[in-house]
């Protein structure tokens, strides 16, 4: 999303030589510039974006030359510290970052301590976690800082040991000379420090010499997680930050009219405070259980919300009205299709939550935030505090999938804490998260392909979507504000759409346009944003086109893909997945391709749509067709941590299965019916493919591509294509089970369900 390229940040002064700094500090601190996005996007089609970039350039020029540094610190105990200006929400970037440092410093991975940096407004655009951009943007700067640290340590060791630097080797955190004398880097932490800040040039390790990067490593935070010691926001012990929840409206973004029993609820067991805020009625209590009881006891009269009376059907009509024309049908044969994608929730398992301690003259916030700078600035503005008086800590996140680009809970927690003058630990109930949280916009996609003989003449796609809130901008408030301007936002969304949607096939004249409508919903960039829907529509049409031309779906794609790298991943899944093998009736294979984030991917899926499988019984669950096998091939260029990359693809595949088959929100009467994980059918164990193979393609590339979201699009598309081939009918509405409501909706008043009492009966 931020569009940096691999060799952009950190100033290159040769093929592998870069400039960085040694900072004035008591122990060794080496740094490199995490430079704001280069203006390489000048070719963008939108005049609004050009204005944005001009603003960016102006701000870059105004920034102090060393304000945007990221630094590697060597500690006296021989460990190395680095505060990563990104959010770790499960994607494994603390591990891959530690690997980069371990590689360049020749220290064991266990000695590298990666934490998450507080909000640093001086980093401008460079503290946004999104667009699968972390590794692309930080790959060079982190290594430069680490390499400078290594240089300084070697120089200090040379003095200590009385040897020439060229006679020294640094291995496993110990520097040894030719006589066998050795010194640990911890003993050099002070001696290698600098009295003043100096610029230094350094050469990075060449790819052929890598011993850490490119080899599979397990996650550095796994032990903490499996022992329950890993701390998420709600696990932090901030003095007097008591549990707090909000009684929310029955319809999307409704407002409080009046509350009939505030005083009464204030006297309920454990309750310390009840106060009306902008989003509902906040309750603070000794335990979250007592918050739930108090929220349920509140009698609130509500004012209308921002989607009053709307339903799936009315939104579908809005989308039809907003659809851009495909133009006149050409005289040649065409293949055409229109597809509908219902609202989906990007809820993570950790709900929206934050701790806030707001005092008269300062505020401190703890939350998993992917755009902490905008959060800090927005919170400061809301509280009426100077920016410097607001501290925003980025905590480890329990998943995001785009949700944590927004800071809804942090803003709310700050508001409550200021109103009652006490620290709060604020958490959304799961029902809140489903009904009032961010969603992936409902959308339609119309595709028309014209062909003649064996040639595809043109490809047109008109994607029409409920407006996607990109209001977190590029992670900085000025762009966030620009994205909220009516004109600027259209430009931004369209630009984002154009930048993220490649046409990978040789399909002649190609045009893909986005039209957005209706800003009444709480939306956001769900993992892989527009691509799963756009790609799913395209790949289904590709299958139909292949059939019309009498070609095999795999051969057709292989023939029309534009480059060897793309053809290689496709050929790989076809070979490894035994494409074309005979399959029983009502079962089939599907194949799909997607390119994004400087990476390419292909999926081969086998699906079982036989009645005995579709109707297998699962209590309170949606079974439906079972994806029985997935073979996925991915080429991200240089894969820093192949095991982490495989993990990301596995998660993307589970998302793709859910998007194609089971998971959606149903909009009725201005609210979403879903209020539980047993209403919103994200992939569960009973939907998981028993066979899964992920292939990381070998690559000689020196540059890493993005991966955190990459696999969703091809997975969803391949499942849809397999379903179409198994049933003989191309699916046109997603997820395919959306038309069947598989649960009884929970009431909207009170807004959250009661806590069950029968837990002992279910011990097993």
């Amino acid at each position, binding site marked *: 999303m931020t569009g940096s390229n691999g060799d952009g940040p950190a100033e290159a002064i040769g093929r592998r030589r870069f400039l960085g700094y040694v900072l004035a500090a008591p122990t060794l601190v080496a740094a490199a510039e995490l430079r704001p996005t280069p203006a390489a996007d000048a070719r963008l089609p939108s005049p609004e974006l050009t204005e944005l970039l001009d603003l960016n350039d102006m701000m870059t020029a105004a920034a102090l030359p060393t304000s945007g540094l990221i630094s590697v610190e060597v500690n006296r105990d021989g460990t190395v510290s680095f505060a990563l200006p990104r959010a770790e929400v499960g994607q494994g970037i603390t591990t891959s970052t530690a690997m980069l440092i371990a590689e360049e410093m020749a220290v064991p991975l266990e000695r590298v301590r990666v934490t998450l940096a507080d909000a640093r407004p001086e980093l401008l655009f460079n503290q946004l976690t999104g667009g699968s951009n972390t590794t692309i943007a930080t790959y060079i700067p982190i290594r430069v800082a680490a390499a400078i640290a290594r240089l300084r340590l070697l120089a200090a060791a040379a003095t200590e040991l009385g040897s020439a630097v060229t006679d020294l080797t640094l291995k496993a955190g110990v520097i040894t000379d030719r006589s066998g004398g050795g010194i640990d880097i911890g003993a050099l932490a002070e001696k290698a420090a600098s009295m003043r800040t100096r610029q230094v040039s350094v050469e990075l390790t060449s790819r052929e010499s890598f011993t850490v990067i490119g080899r599979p490593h397990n996650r550095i935070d*796994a032990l903490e997680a499996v022992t329950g010691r890993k701390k998420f926001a*709600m696990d932090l012990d901030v003095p007097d930050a008591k549990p707090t929840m909000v009684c929310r409206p029955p319809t999307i973004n409704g407002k409080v009219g009046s509350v009939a029993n505030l005083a009464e609820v204030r006297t309920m067991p454990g309750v310390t405070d009840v106060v009306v805020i902008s989003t509902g009625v906040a309750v603070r209590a*000794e335990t979250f259980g007592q918050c739930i009881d108090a929220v349920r006891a509140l009698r609130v009269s509500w004012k209308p919300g921002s989607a009053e009376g709307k339903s799936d059907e009315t939104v579908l009509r809005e989308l039809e009205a907003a659809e851009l024309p495909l133009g006149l049908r050409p005289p040649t044969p065409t293949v055409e299709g229109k597809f509908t994608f219902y609202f989906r929730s990007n809820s993570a398992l950790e709900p929206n939550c934050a701790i806030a301690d707001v005092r008269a003259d300062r505020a401190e916030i703890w939350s998993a935030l992917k755009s902490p700078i905008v959060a800090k600035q927005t919170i400061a503005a809301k509280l009426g505090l100077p920016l410097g008086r607001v501290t925003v800590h980025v905590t480890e996140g329990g998943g995001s999938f785009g949700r944590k680009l927004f800071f809804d809970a942090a803003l709310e927690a700050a508001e409550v804490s200021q109103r009652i003058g006490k620290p709060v630990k604020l958490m959304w109930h799961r029902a809140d998260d489903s009904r009032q949280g961010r969603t992936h916009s409902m959308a339609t996609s119309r595709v028309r392909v014209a062909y003649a003989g064996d040639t595809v003449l043109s490809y047109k796609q008109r994607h029409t979507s409920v407006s996607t809130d990109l209001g977190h901008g590029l992670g900085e408030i000025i762009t966030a504000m620009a994205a909220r301007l009516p004109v600027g936002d259209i430009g931004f969304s369209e630009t984002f759409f154009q930048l993220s949607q490649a046409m990978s096939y040789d399909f002649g004249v190609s045009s893909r346009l986005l039209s957005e409508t209706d800003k009444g919903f709480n939306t956001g960039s769900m993992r892989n944003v527009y691509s799963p829907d756009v790609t799913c529509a395209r790949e289904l049409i590709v299958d139909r086109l292949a059939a019309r031309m009498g070609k095999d779906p795999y051969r057709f794609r292989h023939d029309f893909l534009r480059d060897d790298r793309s053809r290689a991943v496709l050929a790989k899944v076809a070979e490894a997945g035994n494409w074309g093998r005979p399959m029983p009736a009502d079962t089939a294979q599907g194949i799909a391709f997607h390119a994004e984030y400087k990476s390419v991917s292909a999926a081969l899926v086998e699906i079982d749509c036989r009645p005995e499988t579709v109707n297998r019984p699962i209590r309170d669950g949606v079974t439906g067709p079972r994806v029985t096998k997935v073979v996925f091939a991915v080429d991200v260029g240089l894969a820093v941590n192949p095991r982490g990359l495989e993990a990301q693809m596995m998660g993307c595949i589970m998302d793709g299965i859910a998007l194609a088959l089971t998971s959606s929100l149903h909009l009725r009467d201005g609210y979403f019916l879903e209020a539980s994980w047993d209403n919103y059918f994200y992939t569960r164990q*009973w939907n998981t493919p028993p066979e899964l193979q992920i292939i990381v393609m070998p690559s000689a590339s020196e540059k890493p591509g993005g991966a955190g979201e990459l696999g969703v699009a091809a997975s969803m598309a391949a499942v849809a294509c397999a379903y179409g081939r198994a049933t003989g009918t191309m699916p046109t509405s997603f997820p395919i089970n959306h038309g069947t409501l598989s649960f009884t909706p929970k009431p909207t008043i009170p807004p959250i369900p009661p806590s069950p009492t029968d837990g002992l009966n279910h011990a097993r």
Partner: protein
Amino acid sequence: MPEHTFRVNGEQVTVNVAGDVRLLWVLRDVLGITGPKYGCGINVCKACTSHLNGKAVNPCAIPVKDLQPTDEVTTIEGLPAKVGKDLHPMQQAWLDHDVVQCGYCQPGQIMAAVALVRRAAAEGREITDADLDGLRNICRCGTYFRIREAIRAGAENM
């Protein structure tokens, strides 16, 4: 306020809290035991799965007054001590298979897995695909496949 006495992770505890407060909040908000996570509060997502007298339960659905002084609650924090090691074999299998992504659901996943393996063992049989399909714990990161591999491996060493 009424007092409630039970055992947690090998220790006898007494808490002063209303009897209808669910065990999850007694563990997290009163005792500061944060391994069991909130994911839904209605016994659906299973992120809080812990053991009561060796069986899998969901503390979000147990009023604390239902516990007896002899009842033994084991959370992820107390699991290794049950086998007298730093790590339970299932936790080790989780590490070996690098299961964790965000990690939020994993304490509950591991506690559910251990109880499943014990159930199968009590019935004198191996873990089946149907057993694994029957696990209800949500993992929104989609680590399901590695969970299945880890459970089979962990079961070997239990």
